[in-house]
């Protein structure tokens, strides 16, 4: 079923098993996650007619759990964008805020959930791509700890940063979906078993994956750290909704203290250097020979590939691949890439310190409200800066959730982000469930 806000790229339905925890539930899947026999475009003209020959592990798990996949959702091309406007299949409109972007890059996934056209959805989050659209569309999104969810069958953008995560109307439903997709996978060597990873050395926690049960709304005694760096830069109306939500949590028995995390000031720069660098390598595979758009040219191979890639990639993708190539090239590697890796280590350390003195860290998910459609592409730097609060979490490999915190006076949704320790999904689910 196509939608009038352009939520889906493909609406071919994929049936799941008859029984299972998600029987009778529809779960839309972002179009960079492989579905056997159904095209997987990554929002790119390059892969316009690419039909995946196998299922991603998360898709196998959805089907085994009984879910029906109603379609593949629209997205920024290869995940590169914050507004779902870089899709080769046209922008998605925000059903919760008409005339505005749904956020990105998993904008289609958040939009179909917000509009009620799917019960839940999967997105992918490399620098905020699940949490941003969840916040902008007024739904819940979880970016899991690096290694919790298999990425086998996910078309790679920046491997060291990205995770597949659930989007749903409520925290409890998002937690149910996370239970289905989480867990180690032989086909993805970066996955870890949360039963071991969340327990002290040598011990196992058999209840590690019981995420839905953690959505009990109990925040009595919860200690919340608020990184000032992530609140100071926010729009005043966003900040006001954020503090109201913190007051709500306080009224239910939580307390908060502010923390200074100086390293977070460098997160956006570090994120873009690392993500673009990894993208320049990952997207080298699209040469129009094994798959992807071929210009049908003959002659020098490099020139032929360059013409196919000129035609197949959109402007934002070209820009990121070129900047990544630049950042890794001789003479500039130390200046950009090495400095970005230092920033990443610093951010990780400061987050760990802050989380030893707090149960969770809270901030607005996005420092801004959903942008009016058509305003962002002309000023990429401004679009990048909107990722200030989400990118640090990917750099630190930590889990985070975005829950609806309220609306501005104009009725635009605002999300609250909660960050937890590695494999501490239950902490952020419990805290988030007090609000949604």
């Amino acid at each position, binding site marked *: 079923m196509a939608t009038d806000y352009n939520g889906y790229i493909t609406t071919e339905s994929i049936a799941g098993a008859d029984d299972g925890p998600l029987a009778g539930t529809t779960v839309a899947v972002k179009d960079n996650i492989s579905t056997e026999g159904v095209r997987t475009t990554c929002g790119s003209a390059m892969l316009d007619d690419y039909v995946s*020959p196998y299922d991603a592990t998360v898709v196998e798990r959805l089907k085994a759990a009984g879910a029906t996949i109603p379609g593949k959702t629209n997205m920024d091309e290869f995940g590169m964008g914050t507004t779902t406007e870089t899709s080769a299949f046209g922008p998605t409109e925000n059903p919760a805020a008409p005339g505005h972007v749904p956020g990105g890059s998993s904008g289609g996934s958040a939009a179909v959930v917000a509009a009620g056209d799917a019960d839940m959805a999967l997105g992918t989050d490399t620098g905020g791509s699940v949490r941003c659209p969840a916040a902008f569309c007024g739904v819940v999104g979880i970016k899991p700890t690096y290694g919790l969810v298999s990425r086998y069958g996910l078309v790679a953008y920046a491997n060291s940063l990205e995770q597949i995560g659930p989007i749903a109307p409520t925290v409890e439903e998002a937690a149910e979906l996370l239970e289905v997709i989480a867990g180690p996978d032989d086909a993805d060597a970066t996955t870890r078993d949360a039963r071991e990873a969340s327990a002290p050395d040598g011990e196992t926690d058999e209840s590690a994956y019981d995420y839905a049960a953690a959505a009990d709304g109990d925040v009595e005694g919860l200690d919340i750290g608020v990184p000032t760096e992530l609140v100071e830069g926010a729009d005043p109306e966003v900040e006001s909704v954020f503090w109201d939500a913190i007051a709500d949590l306080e009224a239910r028995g939580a307390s908060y203290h502010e923390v200074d995390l100086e390293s977070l000031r*460098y997160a956006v720069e570090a994120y873009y250097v690392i993500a673009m660098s990894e993208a320049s390598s990952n997207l080298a595979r699209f040469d129009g020979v094994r798959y992807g758009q071929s210009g049908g040219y*003959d002659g020098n191979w490099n020139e032929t590939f360059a013409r196919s890639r000129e035609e197949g990639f959109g402007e934002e993708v*070209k820009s990121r691949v070129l900047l990544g190539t630049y950042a890794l*090239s001789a003479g500039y590697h130390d200046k*950009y890439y090495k400095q*970005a890796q230092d920033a990443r280590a610093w951010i990780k350390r400061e987050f760990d310190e802050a989380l030893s003195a707090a149960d969770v860290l809270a901030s607005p998910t996005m420092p801004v409200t959903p942008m009016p459609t058509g305003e962002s592409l002309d000023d990429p730097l401004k679009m990048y800066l909107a990722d200030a609060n989400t990118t640090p979490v990917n750099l630190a490999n930590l889990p985070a959730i975005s829950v609806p915190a309220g609306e501005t006076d104009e009725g635009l949704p605002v999300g609250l982000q909660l960050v937890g320790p590695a494999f501490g999904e239950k902490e952020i689910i419990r805290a988030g469930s007090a609000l949604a």
Partner: protein
Amino acid sequence: MSDGETGDGDADDAAAVDPEAVRHVADLARIDLDDAEVERFTERFADVLAYFETLEEVPEVEGEADLANVMRPDEVRDSLSQEDALANAPETEDGYFKGPKVS
């Protein structure tokens, strides 16, 4: 494909971006650009790279790598059939991918 020489790579340079540098990087990345794109990217890259300059303020930080090798027995397993592996190729011949003809 992204580890080539930029030719003018001097780490002390403030990010000086001219159309020639953009063309050179595009060549390394195997992406053709038309003149209008070169012009837009020259301006855009100057902005973005100037913004990345702030990373110079980041101190040297020792990152503790939390990495472990993941091994498995080297056993034969099912994989994609040749037919499936070739199904998305624009051109194939006798069970092979077919690349551009070198003139």
